[in-house]
């Protein structure tokens, strides 16, 4: 569009406008490349995470108490089952072994923690 002569007329000078506060400029990050899209995974069923949450961890100190419970519960369970005594003992021992194998001495754990700290690089 061609400018007309009257469009170039200079008007009066107005007062300088007050500058406004300039907020700090945020760092401009590099523009990242476009990421590859992936397919949407299957939606899991509700409640599948943390399905089995035991109430507590057993300690070696509770070992005797747990073994006593195994004996008592086995006596109740097999009282009318017709199972021979030696088989009852077998099952009790098997359960005790399975439980015992997971019991770590909490004193051992604390000691290993302390030694682990010492063994960290830069320490002793």
């Amino acid at each position, binding site marked *: 569009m061609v400018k007309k002569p009257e469009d170039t007329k200079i008007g009066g000078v107005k007062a300088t406008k007050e500058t406004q506060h300039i907020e700090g400029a945020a760092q401009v990050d590099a523009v990242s490349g476009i990421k590859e899209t992936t397919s949407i995974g299957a939606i899991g069923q509700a409640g599948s995470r943390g399905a089995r949450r035991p109430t507590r961890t057993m300690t070696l100190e509770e070992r005797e108490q747990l073994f006593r419970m195994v004996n008592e*519960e086995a006596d109740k369970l*097999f009282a009318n089952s017709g199972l021979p005594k030696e088989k009852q003992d077998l099952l009790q021992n098997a359960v005790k*072994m399975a439980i015992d194998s997971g019991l770590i001495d909490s004193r051992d754990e604390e000691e290993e923690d302390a030694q682990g700290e010492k063994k960290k690089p830069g320490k002793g």
Partner: protein
Amino acid sequence: METKEETRTLTIDEANNLVIEHQGWAESIARSVARAWNMDWQQDGLDGAAMEALIFCARRFQPSRGVPFRGYSRRRIHEASAEQARKTKGWQKAVGGGGQSQEARNISIELLSVFPELRGGQLPFMDESGGDSDSDARGAIRQLLVGASFIAAKQGISTSAPDDVMDYKRMIEVVAALESTHQMIVWKVYWEGVSLRTVAVEWETDELNVIREHKAILGYLAKQVSSTKPVPKPKVRPGLRAVALKLKKR
């Protein structure tokens, strides 16, 4: 969508430091396994198996997932130690009690597969436990005893020891009267050695449904075996009704 940063495993140096920090702890797991089965944790090679598993876990560990390293690695280290124990000559030795110690070991190692939380020093409780820890512990122990009975009966069959099987006759009779879905769970878990999670995947259902059903079965069996009066057999819970219908149609 996870980025590479979020799924990053540790560098070799970081993993090695993690191994150094937890070496003693891994050894304590190996010692626990050895103690339970009356073996020597070093002579029977459990220390080496535990270390291998520790290194394996340290190399695969992803801190960004928010799971503590010990929680992540404990079962793997226990499993490796137990597997090593089973392979060694020390496993075959029966100290006192003749062959019964060997038999008890065989049952206990299968019990660890059915109840993997035992490897982490935990009893198989459920979320809806009443809060009375003593009562919950006893309930869990009953489950373990019933589970051990199934395993023993199966081992009796597989070793062609009919006398052994007859000892568990009552247990087997009770199982034979269960709903077919429940029989299927017992068969898969105790005879085929399939985990509850695998059963859930096969049946395209939530693992929690199978776990609850398994617990209901064991609870019923414990009552039935220990009682002189008949106990009403459990019905399939709502979570597995659809599965039960599909199985019946097949």
